[in-house]
């Protein structure tokens, strides 16, 4: 503890927002200086977060609690509650944020509107940090909306492109449906407990002091909230469209951080909800089915970035699935979140470098990049192997924990769902890698290797994709110290963890079976492609299995209803006034009935 914790917390809350205001003022410096100043500022934001990490993750540490007045007259205070779960997501947001800003210095060079870009990234990092460290559900919701706003604004960053503008609006509206679920859940919890404090609600919930009906209703509303933000079926279709954003934004917001907000809120509230009938089962099936369908769509997708987006949906499905394993699943899902954030950021940034260089997102037009971009190929291979869950790479260890959890609890159908998904994951990872780097290019082109700064970032992330799983010891100790891992959970010492994972032969067998089947699926692709079922899957998979049509139909229904309701609006001033008078009478009667008057 070098520096006082309170100071660090204040810095980590205040700095990003101060920089959000500062960055646009630096426009005069010119684009290049602005980019490098932003790197410096992002580093300044990351420092206090990483300084707090060791304070939380030492054995037997206490949560850091603080409180700042926000709106004292309304009794709203910014309560800070930092435990391993909170600080770890804050660390991902600021750490990957720093890397992405560094990468942007080169990647975003020459784009219009750079001050806006860097300012929004600062705002996003700050909002994400505040979202996870606060203890007050109202403030969680406040920042939940701010990250949604940043996502919208950054998807539509290229304001002159109508496709980008539409994708931004789609993302905003779709996640808003989830947000309504979340706010209803929050108010129902407030109704039942009279408090917005997460810790108080969890304490009451565990003591059984919350009315079961309220608690289960709120639990399912929180799932709807997570469905929107974390892109679970059927609210997932915004994420592939969000790929109109600059690739850096996709890496930071739509792979590593914001889409994890839903997972975070479920993990945060899991101790309260886990006893609700059917809550964990709902998560198991929601996650499992999402993972499976998204993997199928990834396998037929021709667009590199959209493939990665579907793969993100699929991996988020794994995390939701892991939460469905009960309290011990909280650790597993967050462990997968950590690994996924790193290797998916790597994959996205590699994809960005490739798209930057080739100028197309269609994988069939890339082909044969291994000669022209050997270093990028090497780094992207690490990401693909981690995604596929090949042993030693990070994805293997957390997926193995998920399989082991489902296996130990004898959840056979969900287990089959995730194992089939793992198989498809291997197949689409191979497909992505071979389509991009192997084969022969169709036409002459001038492709350059990824420039130095970008390679540096990719290299750091590639090391993470191999090594991030080794943080398991510190990570699991922190989680079990804070009661976030369930009573049956045993702390993983690194050596023991490796030993335990590799000697659990059934689960390793399942994993290897999945990998083998996936590889088989890839090598047998040509003979499998021709039959009718595959043709159907390819045709409808590329159309997103009709989820967009579903959205359109709902929107059309609302529109028709509105046209009918419009007849109520006569435009006559007297009629309108009668409405006002009736409303006042109703309010009067209501107040009278409640004995206020």
């Amino acid at each position, binding site marked *: 503890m070098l520096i006082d914790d309170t100071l660090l917390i204040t810095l980590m809350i205040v700095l990003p927002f101060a920089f959000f205001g500062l960055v646009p003022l630096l426009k005069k410096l010119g684009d290049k200086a602005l980019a490098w100043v932003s790197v410096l500022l992002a580093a300044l934001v990351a420092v206090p977060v990483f300084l707090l990490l060791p304070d939380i993750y030492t054995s037997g540490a206490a949560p850091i609690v603080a409180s700042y007045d926000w709106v004292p007259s309304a009794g709203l205070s910014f309560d800070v509650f930092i435990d391993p779960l909170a600080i770890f997501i804050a660390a991902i947001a600021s750490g990957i944020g720093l890397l992405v800003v560094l990468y942007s210095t080169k990647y975003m060079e020459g784009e219009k509107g750079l001050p806006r870009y860097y300012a929004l990234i600062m705002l996003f990092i700050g909002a994400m940090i505040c979202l996870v460290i606060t203890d007050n559900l109202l403030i969680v919701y406040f920042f939940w909306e701010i990250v949604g706003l940043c996502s919208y604004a950054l998807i539509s960053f290229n304001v002159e492109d109508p496709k980008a503008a539409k994708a931004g609006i789609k993302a905003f509206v779709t996640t808003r449906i989830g947000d309504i679920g979340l706010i209803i859940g929050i108010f129902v919890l407030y109704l039942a407990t009279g408090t917005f404090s997460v810790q108080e609600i969890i304490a009451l919930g565990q003591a059984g002091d919350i009315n079961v009906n309220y608690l289960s209703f709120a639990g399912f509303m929180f799932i709807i909230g997570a469905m929107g933000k974390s892109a679970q079926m059927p609210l997932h279709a915004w994420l592939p469209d969000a790929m109109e954003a600059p690739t850096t934004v996709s890496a930071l917001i739509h792979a590593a951080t914001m889409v994890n907000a839903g997972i975070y809120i479920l993990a945060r509230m899991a101790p309260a909800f886990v006893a609700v009938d059917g809550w964990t089962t709902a998560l198991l099936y929601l996650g499992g089915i999402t993972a499976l369908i998204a993997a199928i769509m990834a396998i037929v997708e021709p667009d590199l970035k959209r493939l990665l987006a579907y793969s993100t949906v699929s991996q988020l499905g794994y995390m939701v699935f892991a939460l469905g394993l009960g309290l011990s699943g909280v650790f597993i899902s967050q462990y997968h979140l950590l690994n996924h954030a790193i290797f998916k950021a790597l994959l996205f940034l590699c994809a960005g470098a490739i798209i930057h260089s080739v100028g197309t997102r269609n994988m069939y037009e890339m082909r044969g990049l291994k000669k022209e971009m050997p270093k990028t190929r090497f780094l992207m291979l690490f990401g693909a192997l981690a995604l596929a869950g090949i042993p030693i790479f990070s994805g293997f260890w957390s997926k193995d924990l998920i399989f082991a959890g489902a296996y130990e609890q004898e959840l056979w159908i969900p287990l089959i769902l995730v194992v089939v998904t793992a198989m498809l994951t291997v197949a689409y990872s191979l497909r992505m890698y071979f389509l991009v780097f192997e084969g022969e290019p169709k036409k002459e082109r001038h492709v350059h290797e990824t420039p130095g700064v970008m390679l540096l970032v990719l290299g750091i992330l590639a090391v993470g994709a191999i090594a991030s799983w080794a943080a398991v010891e510190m990570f699991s100790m922190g989680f079990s110290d804070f009661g976030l891992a369930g009573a049956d959970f045993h702390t993983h010492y690194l050596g023991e963890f490796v030993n335990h994972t590799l000697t659990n032969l059934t689960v390793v067998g399942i994993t290897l079976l999945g990998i083998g089947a996936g590889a088989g699926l890839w090598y047998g692709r040509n003979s499998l492609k021709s039959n009718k079922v595959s043709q159907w899957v390819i045709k409808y998979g590329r159309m997103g299995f009709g989820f967009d049509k579903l959205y359109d139909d709902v929107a059309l229904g609302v529109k028709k209803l509105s046209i009918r309701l419009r007849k109520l609006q006569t435009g006559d001033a*007297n009629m309108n006034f009668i409405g006002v008078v009736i409303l006042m009478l109703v309010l009067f009667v209501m107040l009278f009935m409640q004995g206020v008057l």
Partner: protein
Amino acid sequence: MALEIVQIDIMFALIFLALGLYCVLSKKNLVKMVIGLEIMAKGSTLAFIGMGGAAVQGYVIIAISIEAIVAAVALSIIVNVWKQSKSLDSSKMGKLRG
């Protein structure tokens, strides 16, 4: 039984309110509707004076000046409506209906 001054105030306030409401709800002419609104506002001001005694003077003066501003804005809108449509009949003003 003699009425107290407060009761008389409130009674007149209610009468003003009812008259103003009737005017706003039934008249089609925009100027008449604004007059109705003003009568209602005067009713509420009167009730305020009756209940609050001498202490509310300052508030009442502010309220009256705000009413005057509201009336001025409403009348200026009406003047523009007149310039556009040469009519003050509110029921004929359905052009901007959503």
